[in-house]
């Protein structure tokens, strides 16, 4: 994979990852109370703000300096893959509860919807990054 492609894929992965982490932290306020809820909102805003300010580029830069294209490229696929699996768990659990007929509070359904959205965002990043890596390898061979 070429350096520019690696950089794009890596930055995309970390950007989506940071937004997911921020979204997860902020939505934790829905299932928390009091000081914890406020802390989760602030943490979410801090992480999302850091992502929008360009922290993902610094993470890529650090990994690139440390391990070169190999590490940056590996994590460009591995991080969204992990995010897809982790954030798929909650909607599956809540969906199962709803299917059984458990009358769950709306806040849990909202959190499950947020989690499903984060899962899809990570899946999209995974597909785009994998396609970019494979496409680049084919074009070079």
């Amino acid at each position, binding site marked *: 994979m070429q350096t520019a492609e690696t950089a794009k894929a890596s930055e995309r992965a970390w950007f989506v990852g940071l937004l997911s*982490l921020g979204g997860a932290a902020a939505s934790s306020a829905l*299932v928390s109370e009091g000081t914890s809820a406020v802390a989760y909102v602030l943490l979410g805003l801090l992480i999302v703000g850091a992502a929008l300010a360009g922290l993902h580029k610094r993470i890529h830069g650090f990994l690139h300096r440390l391990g070169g294209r190999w590490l940056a490229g590996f994590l460009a696929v591995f991080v969204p893959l992990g995010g897809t699996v982790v954030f798929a768990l909650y909607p599956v659990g809540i969906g199962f509860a709803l299917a059984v007929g458990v009358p769950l509070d709306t806040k849990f359904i909202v959190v499950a919807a947020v989690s499903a959205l984060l899962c899809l965002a990570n899946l999209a990043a995974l597909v785009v990054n994998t396609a970019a890596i494979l496409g680049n390898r084919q074009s070079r061979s």
Partner: protein
Amino acid sequence: MPGTRWRELLCVDNPDEVIEVSRDDPYLQAFRLAALNRQSRLSKIEDLAAQWPELGLLFFELYAASGSCGGAAVAAMTGAGIPLAVALLLGCGGSVAGFLYTGNEIARDAGDLANAMIAWWQHDSDARYNFCRMEGGSDADCRDREG
């Protein structure tokens, strides 16, 4: 127990519905027990569903583990610096331990959640059956209405 709480526990579609039940109706106690157990299981399910921040923590630990373990491996292979490799290796060990601990907690919670859902469903069926019998339904009719 206040009337409003009982209305929440009842299975009727119309909360204003009134049925007369004898104090020694054998289905009354069974219904009360099933309805209270069902409420208890619902509370357990909601407690477990409130563990959502654990998934965010797991994702963060995945970040830390992948970055530090990959970094440690590359730093050691390329000879980028032994102190850096050792520091990253320590971070790698810590984040992997955290990842495994949180993963284990989530797996345990998921098992408890599945058990609580199955128990809720069983108590719900029992409550519906006994309520139906209190209303005067036959055994066959009430079994049909359980689900």
